[in-house]
């Protein structure tokens, strides 16, 4: 029926007639309306329709208002009353809201980290459909095959690089990307534009896009940067655009982009990115791309299988980080539980103080359910305030999230919609968890007693007392468990920092040499050339010792041993290496100039693994594909890391003449020459030798400490919050308990009890709670410590220092919290008390 009034009426009725009967009722009306129209004409039918509709709507509204609305009114009244009560005595409610906000804030921030690292897809258009596959070199053929497969909306490619900006003297983490990448990801530049399709062709235009991050840090947010020419890697490039800081691609650290032409003649790893068409199952994409990779990609002969297809940005951050994150989420859950039980304790006290009011309501006919609903409404206000404050706190905490985590994800770590949703759920859970017991205990009134007006009924009810004590025990136990966990993490971190690495890496500068194959094209020339470099460097005035090597510690390249599942790090070095790094030769000798690849020096650990009972010198071993004779045993190099699989045994072979990549290791006396000086001095040996300083060993070692450090830091914050909260809980519960027992204490004093006896009385109460909490917490701590075992370094779950520290902290915190209540008990003056009666 194409009739505007009819449609309006229908819409009106759908809103007022109960859904079950709406269709038939509207059908009846439609039938009658059609008849009336033919009999009376359009206009009078409209009047009729309006009247009938109004009649229906009015009747159903009247029907409704005799049923449900009363409950709605009651709820509104509950809320209004709750707001009034809360505003009248805001102190406890505010404290509860603050405690909740601490829990919600911590948990929300932690959720933000977990969400951005593990749960959320990459922050780009169609993020959950973006995939990437890494290859050993650019593979244009694979890209074409992807495009022809019909699986993808867009196919692009990129490779990671570092750009040397000669103007600012900085090296930026950059990437070469095909011009379409920005369109595929649906990102727009902050200023300027993106690459044009032609930019990728060599020679057409040398352009660069930079990130807002370096635009601000290195160029002072210069508005004229777009269009300026920079000298990058020795070539002039025009800045065409500035990307927002949140755009981090393809690596979290990338801050500059240059156009990329995937060419099959280039070497070096490159990645292909694709956006899968909607609705294409992931399994199909995986299967088809695996076939394409097999057919079209030029994989190395010894590479079996195909490179894995990843979700873009959703790259697995590694089992270790995943575990660490879930662990921290577990920690935050414990903190949340501590805070909730503290709030619970406060709410019991708050409701108990109002038991007369509740009893009065009960006497006037309010049911227990009604009273509990009243209490729940008040708790809901507290939780809503706590949630709002918690979200604000989380937003404030996010910048403090250890940078380590941000470097593992393309997602920003922020408080987004999902985090706010998580916070709200937590808030609701908190009302339920923290509010249920208080509401149950607090609304159990004794109307007769309360109305008699007994304001100084000695103590709280047995149930309320037991409830608040149990909550306190739980808090102390949880705090104790957290403290044990974080103490062990802190000890592990300290062990990692102070671990003996088996070498002296401080004061050593490492230079990455390039262009050697151009300078010395034949093996003989290479041999002479490297000797010349070494001799030249040794003659520099600042240099104390020189060594050449193809790997530098801490190495992460492992080679498998034949007939064994042992994997070992391979170092190809010359004789000076051991002296330079201070690695002792324990047996045999170091390399001599005429040693070949068949000679090897093994580390102490590998020697022990292979020949536990025999003299390793003179033994033979097949490593990689080469049989080698052991000529010496060197002191073990240790990589202090919680990822114990990275700390492998090692062996050394002579450098040889085939090296195209080489590191020059220099130990300086006093100040070291800088990169420019080294470069110009090496140019004197041969003009095509390039040189770049690589991060010092100290920095490399520190990188391995970042995860344990981040975990220990976050864990420490959790433990501190938990201990402070538990101490606060102890303080408030004891203060209340002493306040309620004032009469008892007064009578005791009147009967001749000494202050020391009173002190003992309260102390016994405190000790009972703390000892029970401590005992339960020790058991919990043991479980936590076992769960953390894989994050421990040189410390075991029963480490006496950690345990003593934890028990000491708990004891001190408990005494500090109980101090004032104890003094209060002693200061009771019986005369004042009697006057109050």
């Amino acid at each position: 029926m194409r009739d505007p009034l009819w449609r309006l009426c229908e819409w009106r009725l759908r809103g007022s007639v109960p859904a079950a009967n709406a269709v038939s009722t509207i059908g009846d009306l439609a039938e009658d309306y059609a008849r009336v129209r033919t009999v009376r004409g359009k206009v009078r039918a409209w009047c009729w329709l309006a009247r009938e509709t109004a009649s229906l709507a009015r009747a159903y509204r009247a029907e409704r208002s005799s049923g449900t609305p009363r409950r709605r009114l009651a709820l509104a009244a509950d809320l209004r009353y709750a707001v009034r009560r809360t505003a009248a005595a805001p102190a406890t409610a505010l404290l509860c809201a603050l405690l909740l906000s601490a829990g919600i804030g911590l948990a929300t921030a932690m959720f933000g980290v977990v969400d951005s690292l593990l749960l959320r897809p990459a922050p780009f258009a169609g993020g959950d459909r973006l995939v990437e596959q890494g290859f050993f070199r650019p593979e244009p053929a694979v890209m074409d095959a992807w495009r022809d497969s019909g699986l993808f909306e867009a196919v692009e490619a990129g490779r990671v690089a570092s750009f040397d900006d000669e103007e600012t003297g900085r090296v930026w983490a950059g990437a070469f990307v095909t011009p379409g990448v920005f369109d595929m990801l649906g990102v727009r530049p902050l200023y300027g534009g993106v690459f044009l399709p032609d930019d990728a062709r060599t020679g057409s235009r040398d352009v660069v896009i930079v990130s807002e991050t370096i635009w601000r840090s290195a160029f002072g947010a210069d508005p004229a940067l777009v269009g300026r020419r920079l000298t990058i890697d020795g070539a002039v490039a025009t800045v065409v655009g500035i990307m927002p800081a949140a755009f981090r691609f393809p690596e979290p650290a990338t801050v500059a982009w240059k156009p990329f032409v995937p060419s099959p003649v280039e070497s070096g790893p490159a990645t292909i990115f694709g956006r899968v068409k909607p609705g294409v199952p992931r399994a199909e994409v995986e299967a088809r791309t695996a076939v394409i990779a097999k057919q079209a990609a030029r994989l190395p002969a010894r590479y079996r299988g195909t490179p894995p297809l990843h979700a873009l940005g959703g790259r697995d951050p590694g089992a270790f980080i995943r575990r660490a994150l879930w662990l921290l989420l577990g920690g935050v859950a414990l903190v949340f539980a501590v805070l909730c039980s503290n709030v619970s304790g406060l709410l019991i006290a708050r409701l108990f103080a109002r038991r007369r009011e509740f009893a009065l309501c009960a006497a006037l006919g309010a049911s227990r359910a009604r009273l509990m609903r009243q209490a729940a409404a008040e708790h809901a206000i507290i939780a809503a305030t706590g949630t709002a404050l918690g979200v604000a706190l989380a937003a404030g905490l996010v910048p403090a999230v250890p940078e380590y985590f941000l470097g593992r994800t393309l997602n920003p770590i922020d408080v987004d919609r999902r985090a706010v949703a998580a916070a709200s759920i937590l808030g609701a859970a908190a009302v339920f968890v923290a509010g249920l017991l208080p509401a149950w205990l607090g609304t159990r009134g004794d109307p007769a007693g309360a109305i008699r007006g007994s304001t100084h009924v000695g103590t709280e009810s047995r149930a309320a007392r037991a409830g608040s004590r149990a909550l306190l025990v739980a808090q102390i136990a949880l705090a104790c468990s957290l403290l044990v966990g974080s103490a062990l993490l802190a000890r592990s971190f300290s062990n990692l920092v102070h671990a003996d690495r088996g070498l002296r890496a401080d004061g050593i500068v490492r230079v990455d040499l390039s262009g050697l194959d151009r300078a010395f094209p034949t093996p003989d020339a290479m041999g002479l050339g490297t000797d010349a470099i070494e001799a030249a460097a040794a003659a520099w005035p600042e240099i104390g010792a020189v060594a050449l090597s193809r790997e530098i510690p801490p190495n992460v390249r492992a080679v498998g041993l034949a007939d064994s599942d042992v994997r070992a790090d391979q170092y190809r070095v010359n004789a000076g290496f051991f002296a330079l790094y201070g690695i002792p030769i324990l047996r045999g000798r170091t390399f001599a100039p005429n040693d070949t690849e068949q000679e090897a020096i093994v580390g102490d650990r590998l020697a022990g693994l292979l020949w536990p009972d025999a003299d390793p010198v003179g033994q033979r071993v097949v490593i990689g594909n080469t049989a080698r004779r052991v000529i010496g045993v060197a002191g073990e190099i240790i990589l202090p890391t919680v990822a114990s699989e990275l700390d492998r045994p090692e062996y050394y072979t002579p450098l040889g003449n085939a090296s195209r990549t080489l590191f020059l290791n220099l130990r300086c006396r006093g100040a070291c020459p800088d990169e420019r000086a080294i470069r110009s001095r090496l140019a004197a040996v041969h003009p095509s030798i390039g040189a770049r300083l690589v991060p010092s060993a100290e920095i490399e070692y520190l990188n391995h400490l970042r995860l344990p450090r981040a975990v220990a830091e976050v864990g420490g914050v959790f433990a501190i919050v938990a201990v402070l909260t538990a101490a606060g809980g102890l303080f408030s519960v004891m203060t209340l308990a002493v306040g309620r027992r004032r009469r008892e204490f007064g009578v005791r004093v009147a009967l001749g009890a000494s202050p020391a006896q009173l002190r003992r009385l309260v102390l016994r109460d405190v000790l009972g709670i703390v000892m029970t909490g401590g005992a339960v917490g020790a058991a919990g701590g043991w479980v936590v410590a076992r769960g953390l075992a894989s994050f421990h370094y040189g410390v075991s779950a029963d480490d006496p220092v950690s345990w003593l520290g934890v028990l000491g902290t708990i004891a001190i915190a408990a005494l500090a919290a109980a101090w004032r209540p104890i003094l209060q008990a002693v200061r009771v003056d019986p005369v004042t008390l009697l006057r109050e009666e």
Partner: protein
Amino acid sequence: VAPAPASLGELETLLLLAVLHLAEGRHEAYGSAIRGEIRARTGREIPRGSLYVTLDRLEQKGLLASREGGTSAARGNRPKRVFKVTPAGVRAVRTAVAAVTRMRAGLRGVLGEA
């Protein structure tokens, strides 16, 4: 022993009687038809809202039962809701009518009836 039938209001009695009449004549007893039946027999136009609310209430009391009936183009292909008086409904009507009949006894003269 059957439970005491609910006492009926006037409108309720009229509706139940109308549904019974329609059933006797083998017509579908849905909203518009019931209203038409009452209009035809008494000349009274029951307000639409009261009609449906009362039908709902009678169904809730178990005096009426409804099922989905036929449809037509004029209704925009919306199915009818066809009512039927339950045995409890029949008892309730009988009681209500009997009460009126007994109260009327001996008042013929006053009421001006033949």
